[in-house]
């Protein structure tokens, strides 16, 4: 869900002082210390893979959000907001908040009550082994590839910003993540993610504060953007009536149905990278509150990501350009807006904290990928398909080793990407291949008792193949875009939205048709897995202020208000 960074030229953007280096080194020392401290608390499978299922709603919620808040997320979307204006905020609001609330209130009870270790694990309980095998293998593949691509991109960013050697950056950051995740498992990953979340805010929050002071507040910012670009850059919905009326080349239906109803629902409710954090909650109420807390903070993230991009458009004396043009002219690209703003306002010390925020973002994203890969590999591939009856101790050892091996494969992927940079362009496509149909499969499994094992498996497979097929069709014949994305004016992002929508609908249709033609499971076997066959624990014993639905309504109202304000 992040624009790709692919700049590899130009001298460093900023120069660090000794105090900045001390701050960065202290950060590495602290995350390693947390890993070593938690090693003794990761002896059983439940401890290592599920953090003992004892996290509070706040810890699980901040970790849930932090695992997604990678450095590419920060830099990529800041660049996207410079390029597309406030439209980029859709990926934080309609592209996240409804899905997070849906996860909390509708889907989490089934994940939590079924006591599954993973999303593929839920598919095993609901649809059987073939569906789990398909989703776990595709997830493991996607995760290590994403991890490697993120690793390479971060190393490239550090090279551009600081002049650091790519090999050095990859080695130091990946070894650090491998050590603290292998030692403390998911608990260590979660604790560090919470720390990283706080550091990201501490390091990035000054940019919008100082930027707004320089620009003369929100009205001054809008006035400058109207002069430097166009007043449409500060409107969220009013330009989405036609594909050609906005710089993103997208229609509101793509945003609402493709992004809001499919891509974000798929990512936030079925991507195990984020769902795993919530599954570590200490009870069902905490598991429902965690995504709601995450949603509350997610709504504020545009303040440190989107706003700096807009401020760059308003106050930077230079004009940022696309990657290709930047390479050709030696100028700065959109993706460099965040470090440029950092260098503009932050002196010694603050600069070190800002760079630490970027590194922390990268490491939280990578640790999220690695810990999710480790769990899916150990429980859903190794234990399910290779060695079924080993001891708990054996699986914990496998978890530690697969952490190291997962990081090693990611490093290999990172070097592969260096030679084949076009692979980075396919990241968004990969996401729509696997996550969009998975959402339809899991949702039907949870909400429709009649869905059968055959329906679930063939639906998931056909949705994935449909997505790959549409992607290949447009690659071979670009004019096919008018059919896949409904308009010849549609751009890459719009194509991803619509492809995800069609693959999700394909999966749902095939699942329904085959389920109606095959024999369903008896209701007794669906207990704890499906709506209507599961008793959801009552929350009447807690006050209104402690009930998830109350806070979901509060977050929902805030979501509507911000969309109206920036309409």
């Amino acid at each position: 869900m992040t624009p790709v960074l692919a700049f590899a030229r130009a001298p460093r953007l900023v120069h660090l002082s000794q105090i900045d280096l001390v701050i960065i080194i202290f950060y590495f020392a602290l995350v390693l210390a947390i890993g070593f401290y938690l090693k003794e608390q990761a002896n059983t499978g439940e401890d290592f893979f599920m953090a003992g299922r004892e996290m509070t709603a706040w810890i699980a919620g901040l970790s849930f959000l932090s695992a997604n808040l990678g450095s590419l997320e920060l830099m990529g979307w800041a660049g996207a907001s410079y390029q597309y204006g406030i439209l980029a905020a859709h990926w934080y609001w309609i592209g996240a908040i409804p899905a997070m609330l849906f996860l909390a209130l509708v889907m989490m009870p089934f994940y939590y009550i079924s006591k599954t270790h993973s999303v593929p694990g839920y598919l095993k309980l609901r649809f059987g082994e073939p569906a789990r095998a398909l989703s776990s293998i595709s997830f493991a593949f996607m995760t290590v590839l994403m991890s490697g691509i993120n690793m390479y991109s971060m190393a490239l960013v550090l090279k551009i910003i600081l002049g650091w050697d790519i090999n050095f950056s990859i080695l130091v950051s990946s070894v650090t993540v491998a050590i603290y995740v292998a030692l403390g498992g998911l608990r260590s990953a979660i604790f560090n993610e919470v720390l990283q979340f706080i550091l990201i805010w501490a390091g990035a929050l000054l940019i919008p504060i100082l930027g707004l002071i320089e620009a003369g507040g929100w009205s001054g910012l809008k006035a400058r953007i109207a002069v430097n670009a166009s007043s449409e850059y500060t409107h969220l919905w009013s330009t989405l009536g036609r594909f050609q009326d906005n710089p993103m080349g997208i229609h509101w239906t793509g945003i609402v149905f493709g992004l809001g109803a499919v891509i974000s629902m798929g990512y936030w409710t079925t991507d195990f990278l984020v769902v795993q954090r919530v599954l570590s909650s200490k009870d069902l109420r905490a598991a429902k509150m965690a995504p709601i807390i995450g949603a509350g903070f997610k709504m504020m993230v545009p303040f440190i990501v989107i706003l700096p991009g807009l401020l760059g458009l308003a106050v930077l004396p230079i004009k940022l350009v696309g990657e290709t043009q930047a390479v050709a002219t030696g100028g700065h690209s959109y993706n460099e807006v965040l470090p440029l703003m950092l260098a503009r306002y932050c002196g010694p010390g603050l600069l070190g904290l800002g760079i630490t925020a970027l590194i922390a973002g990268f490491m939280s994203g990578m640790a999220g990928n690695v810990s999710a890969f480790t769990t899916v590999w150990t429980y859903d591939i190794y234990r399910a398909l290779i060695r079924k009856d080993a001891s708990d101790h054996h699986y914990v050892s496998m978890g530690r080793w697969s952490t190291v091996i997962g990081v090693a494969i990611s490093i290999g992927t990172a070097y592969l990407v260096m030679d084949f940079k076009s692979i980075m362009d396919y990241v968004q496509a990969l996401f729509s291949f696997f996550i969009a149909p998975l959402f339809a499969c899991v949702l039907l499994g949870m909400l429709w008792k009649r869905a059968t094992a055959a329906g679930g498996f063939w639906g998931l497979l056909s949705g994935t193949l449909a997505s790959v097929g549409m992607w290949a069709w447009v690659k071979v014949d670009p004019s096919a875009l008018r059919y896949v994305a409904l308009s010849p004016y549609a751009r890459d992002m719009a194509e991803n939205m619509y492809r995800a929508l069609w693959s999700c609908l394909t999966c749902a249709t095939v699942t329904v048709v085959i389920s109606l033609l095959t024999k369903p499971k008896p209701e007794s076997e669906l207990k704890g897995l499906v709506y209507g066959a599961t008793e959801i624990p009552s929350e009447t014993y807690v006050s209104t202020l402690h009930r998830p639905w109350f806070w979901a309504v509060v977050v929902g109202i805030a979501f509507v208000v911000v969309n109206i304000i920036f309409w």
Partner: protein
Amino acid sequence: MKAGGSLSIWLFIGISLLVNGLLIFGSGIYELIHPPVKQVVLYNLHANVWWGGLLTALGAFYCIHFAPGKGRV
């Protein structure tokens, strides 16, 4: 949330904010005494002094509030 042992995650966060805050605050004070030749935009606001001070205060609060043996979670 305790870290399984006796240390809370919020204590680690407090330590991080306190150390970073002190370093940034100290750096800001040094810049006040020896103004740099090349200044950042809005240097006159001395962001590293007040931001460093804010982080230090927040870090100190967390360190004290979640210190080992205080029984907080």
